[in-house]
């Protein structure tokens, strides 16, 4: 059975993605900083879907550990999905470098560090799929979350370049641009219900896009058009908006 590695497996979105792939008979490797927190999900996947599941310690911001982490996996994954992210506090991050650095390193540097390693291996073996969960927040910086947004913008650009590089090597890269999603990360935000996806919706979209070898998806799908409009607002007007 093919294997999926899920990086940042503790989040609501990761749980939904793990279940979606397990339902479709993929073995699952779960990776998160707090490995003990994964044991319930690991059991859950085994019992619900009768697949193999394992848990691994992985810290996105501990860059030097990434190579050893990837080597330690008993089975090199066919699909690697980066789900980890840190919304953080924009306001705090504006004046507190520790917070700003955490936002940048979790969402961008950490993702680059681990995916460089995975990409080399996929390029060498000539197959494999990398899925990066980025964000529509990376498509245009807004005053309310431009630290998070700029890190995701970097990540989106990275994924596009990586896709370009791996194409000729036979490996595939899928960029996922979620809009609003109901998760613990967004629990305290007031989100407009018609625009907001459930983690299961995102998971289903990701699975289908992997199977269909899509390059870039938005989830929910209409976020592509919302972002098109937002990106087309002239900067002179945009800078005056309260967004």
């Amino acid at each position, binding site marked *: 059975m093919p294997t999926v590695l899920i990086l940042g497996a*503790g989040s*609501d979105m990761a*749980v939904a993605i793990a279940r979606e792939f397990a339902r479709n008979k993929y073995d699952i490797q779960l990776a998160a900083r707090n490995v003990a*927190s994964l044991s*319930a*999900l690991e*059991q*859950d996947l085994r*019992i*619900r879907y009768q697949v193999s599941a394992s848990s691994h310690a992985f810290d996105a911001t501990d860059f030097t550990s990434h190579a050893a982490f990837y080597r330690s996996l008993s089975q090199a994954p066919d699909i690697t999905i980066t789900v980890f992210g840190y919304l953080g506090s924009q306001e705090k991050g504006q004046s507190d470098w520790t917070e700003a650095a955490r936002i940048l390193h979790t969402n961008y540097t950490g993702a680059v560090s681990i995916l460089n390693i995975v990409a080399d291996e996929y390029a060498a073996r000539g197959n494999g799929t990398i899925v990066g969960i980025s964000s529509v927040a990376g498509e245009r910086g807004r005053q309310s979350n431009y630290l998070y947004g700029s890190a995701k913008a970097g990540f989106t650009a990275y994924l596009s370049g990586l896709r370009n590089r791996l194409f000729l090597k036979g490996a595939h890269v899928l960029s996922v641009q979620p809009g609003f999603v109901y998760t*613990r990360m967004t*629990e*305290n*935000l*007031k989100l407009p219900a018609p625009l907001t996806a459930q983690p299961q919706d995102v998971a289903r979209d990701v699975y289908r896009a992997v199977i269909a070898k899509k390059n870039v998806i938005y989830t929910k799908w209409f976020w592509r058009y919302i972002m098109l409009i937002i990106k087309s607002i002239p900067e002179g007007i945009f800078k005056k908006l309260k967004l």
Partner: protein
Amino acid sequence: MEKRLANWGNYPAISCDESTFSQEEQVQDFISTHSSVIARGNGRCYGDASLAQHSVSTLKYDKVLAFDTTKGIFECQSGITLDQILDIIVPQGWFLPVTPGTKFITVGGAVASDVHGKNHHVDGSFSGHIIDMDIITGNKETITCSANNHSDLFWATCGGMGLTGIITRVKFGLKKISTAYIRQKQIKARNLEDLIRLFEEYKDYTYSMAWIDCLKKGDAFGRGILIVGEHATPEELNEQQRKAPLQLAPKRKLSVPFNLPSFVLNTLTVKAFNWLYYLKNTKREINGVIPYEPFFYPLDAILHWNRGYGKAGFVQYQFVLPLEKKEGLVAILQKISDAGLGSFLAVLKVFGKQDSLISFPMEGYTLALDFPVRKGLFEFLDKLDAIVLQYGGRLYLSKDARMKQEVFWQSYPNAQKFADIIKTYNGAKLFRSVQSDRLLLTE
């Protein structure tokens, strides 16, 4: 985040905030930073039992922890719903020991309501099948309890409406099945007398309940259809079903997309019942082998059927009367029929014996029906409460949205004992709901 929440009856609706958790530390953090909270599952209790200023949703705490397919023992976190459990256990030849009329409830909710099913007279309520469970109590400690270990906490939690703490893990026994089908028998009853006699005659069946027509007067007063069933054996299946006896074909679900004017549902149920009663059942008795889903969960096939009662919502009134107080049942049905405020159909069931602290079931007759919320309804229900009290009965807390506190205290014989155990484990009134405040259990 502040939002509008209501349970299944859409009454009452309150402004409150709801948090989620997927790890135990997260819920510990939550209760450490809030002065009051109530656990909330899938919101399928009807009234205000899981409503509070601050609620914590268990729906993301939904992992399966163990499933012994040889012994039939299932262990899970409290937020998993019964429909997910059925998807896992039925193909392996196991079934829920007890299930209510909807599978869209969480295991935590099943414990907190100590749910009963069509097999109550044989298998008792859900609490009788629990091996052990974990509860985060008022001092933020997680306690493992069972009928023999911290038994006071155990019994006050079964049917305790979340007032002893947050149920986090439940381990319970399953029932062995050899097919996913039910051998069903439907028998027409001319009137209430006839129906009660039929319950007695068919009491050896594992599953039984009846639909009863609340509006019929005279000789046909209380006419109805008794439905009994057993898990089918492979030999009882037809050729098609026998190919995969433990698998059911996936079915499409209907949905009520928005609130309907409240007369629509009643008109529909009248038609449906009459169709069953007159056309399908021209014979007094019909037999069949059907998938377990329509047998146990007929209304689950219509998502959001509660919207059929309109925006004002409805209350479901469910009471139980002792077995020897049959005349009370007649008196109440008469009142309901005369007032014409209720739904056309009611569900009647005979409970078996039950020893518990605060659970709803006791040996006797239980009747449940819906009342759309409208002017004069609550005064009328207060009158029904008085009759229920007079005959030594009580109301189901999971359905309740309006009973007066004195009715609760007079009708539940262990109310004081229950309140004392709540004081032991929830002394600071950390766990409280709109209902518990109304019933003066946490005021």
